[in-house]
């Protein structure tokens, strides 16, 4: 059994470690490229959201590399992601690919079904072994996300920003060659150390921008056209409202006992959006308010074209923008996104935010 799974930010690093820990063979999908997107667009319904198109591209490329089993998680949020597993299964079947599908759907009164799927993926009945691998996988995910966040920070403040890119490129290049959690961990920490010694420029007053919106488009750099990198090169410190670690912590961790960050977001969003609108619509609004309260300089919302929950959030955000006096810009991505127009908007938004901050600072100086 050769297992593969779709790309989603850093998730593949942890999933690879976890599965290899319990002795499974993993076929990593090749990094997302134009070819992935072309394959996906060709074989999926035209109006489906972008993540599904890329998933299908990932599967086909992995199958070409020899994968025979596909692993995907289901979703609790009522958005189209909930159908991904079943839809993808059918699409691949129609295309004539003979692959096994393992889908971790939320239990919803039938925990046995989920358990069977987990055991199938694990290939062992040793619950203790599985639990241990899960916990180690979780830890890899946290440190990989931590490394990515640190690199984003470092890119904004470092004098030589290209060096940061180089270190991270090298990290992602080497990750495929590693085997098991230990090797991944040592690669993560050595990359972290390399970033740490880069010289920082303390003289610049860096802007802080929060990225909010749909989780897949926030964390998958190919899809959001490397927004973190682009902002980093402009000297902007970036924070993302959703990361794979936060998702995991909500679904298998703190969220279950009601103290995760998500719950805080729901509470904040309540005056604007008191109910679930699917996906992460409510979280987007909540994150916007949290970031505004933390004095971020501006927010960028990213969503895939025709993502319903985020469209609801988008129409709520102007009220947040007004009430909390924070600039918010929305970027919509799909396979047609042109990079030039996208970059122009980001640049103009950063100019706007920077000018605002400068005049704000001047006002404070004048008053005192």
């Amino acid at each position: 059994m050769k297992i593969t799974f779709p790309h989603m930010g850093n998730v593949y690093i942890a999933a690879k470690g976890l599965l290899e820990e319990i002795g499974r063979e993993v076929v990593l999908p090749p990094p997302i490229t134009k070819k992935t997107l072309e394959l996906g667009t060709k074989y999926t319904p035209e109006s489906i959201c972008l993540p599904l198109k890329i998933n299908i591209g990932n599967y086909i490329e992995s199958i070409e590399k020899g994968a025979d089993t596909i692993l995907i998680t289901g979703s609790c949020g009522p958005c189209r992601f909930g159908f991904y597993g079943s839809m993808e299964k059918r699409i691949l079947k129609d295309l004539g690919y003979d692959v096994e599908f393992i889908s971790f759907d939320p239990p919803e009164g039938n925990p046995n079904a989920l358990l069977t799927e987990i055991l199938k993926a694990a290939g062992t009945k040793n619950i203790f072994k599985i639990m241990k691998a899960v916990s180690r996988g979780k830890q890899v995910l946290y440190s990989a996300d931590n490394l990515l966040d640190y690199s984003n920070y470092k890119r904004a403040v470092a004098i030589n920003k290209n060096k940061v890119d180089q270190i991270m490129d090298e990290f992602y290049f080497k990750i495929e060659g590693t085997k098991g959690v230990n090797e991944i961990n040592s690669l993560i920490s050595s990359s972290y150390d390399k970033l740490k010694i880069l010289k920082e420029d303390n003289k610049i007053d860096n802007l802080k921008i929060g990225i909010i919106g749909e989780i897949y488009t926030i964390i998958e750099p190919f899809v959001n056209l490397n927004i973190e990198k682009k902002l980093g090169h402009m000297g902007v410190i970036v924070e993302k409202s959703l990361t794979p670690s936060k998702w995991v912590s909500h679904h298998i961790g703190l969220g279950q006992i009601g103290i995760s960050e998500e719950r805080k977001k729901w509470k904040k969003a309540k005056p604007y959006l008191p109910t679930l609108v699917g996906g992460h619509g409510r979280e987007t609004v909540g994150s916007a308010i949290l970031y505004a309260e933390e004095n971020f300089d501006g927010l960028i919302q990213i969503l895939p074209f025709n993502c319903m929950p985020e469209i609801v959030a988008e129409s709520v955000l102007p009220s947040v923008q007004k009430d909390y006096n924070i600039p918010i810009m929305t970027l919509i991505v799909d396979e047609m996104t042109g990079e030039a127009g996208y970059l122009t908007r980001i640049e103009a938004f950063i100019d706007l935010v920077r000018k605002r901050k400068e005049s704000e600072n001047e006002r404070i100086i004048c008053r005192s």
Partner: protein
Amino acid sequence: MKELFVGVDVGSVSTNIVILDDKNNLLENKYVRTRGNPIKVITEAMKEVGNKYKDNDIKGVGTTGSGRNLADIILGADIVKNEITAHAIAAINFIPDVKTILEIGGQDSKIILIDNGIVTDFAMNTVCAAGTGSFLDRQSQRLGIEIQDFGDIAIQSENPVRIAGRCAVFAESDMIHKQQLGHNQEDIINGLCEALVRNYLNNLAKGKNIKEPIVFQGGVAANKGIKKAFEKYLGKEIYIPEYHDVMGAIGAAILAKEKIKKAKHTRFRGFDSIKLDYKVRGFECNDCPNMCEVVEIIADNKVLARWQDKCGKHSNYINNNDKLA
């Protein structure tokens, strides 16, 4: 000795070059059609300008527009800015209390909201052709009239025809339909102007608070029919600056002036180096399935810049510590 600042706006439809003196007076003003060959247009226009001025008169250069990086490579710009900021800066400079800027160019349209001389919000439309100048261009060609006369014909109309303006393709078929019904040409043309304005206000300006004074700039501002339609739908007065068609370039020049205050020395490569023979070479990189079509700019057998590669290995190749584009 003169203190001059050059602003270059390389757009999809037109390339504009302006020269300002240190008091922001406009000395030169060139509006040339890009016609898909920005390098040729930039070098030729600069050559003409170069006959009148000397290298050390030029104290700063700013570039903007979709071809801003290309112009930077050829000229050596002190500042490379996006067209939204450039347009805002120019408008604020001419009308300090401006609150709203409507800008319609060849391939895109923008709305910029300003408060106290600071941009507070903007929107930009890049994919829908129904709201831009090239749509009008195409329709004037179809009707066999010059684009310069378009606005004058439109304002003669007393009874505009309602044309579905949501999409350029539907607008065209609706226009043909109205034509076959026997409507006047001026009514149809005026209907088109109104359709474009409706589309602009319903898409781009949706939910935006349009306050006076309103400035309308960009190439399309020359069209009196559009101005009239804006005034009709907004019920407010629209102000069109004298140099509405080169406002982006003016903004770039002003930004260059501000930059030079801090940087002191210009990166301008001189009028002679603009006379070099610039060549563009494209190649497909086959190192990964992205198959980026990398573009190289070459002059004097030297590679000046590379771009269009997703991973950055070609654009960083020339100088490891300095990103080229």
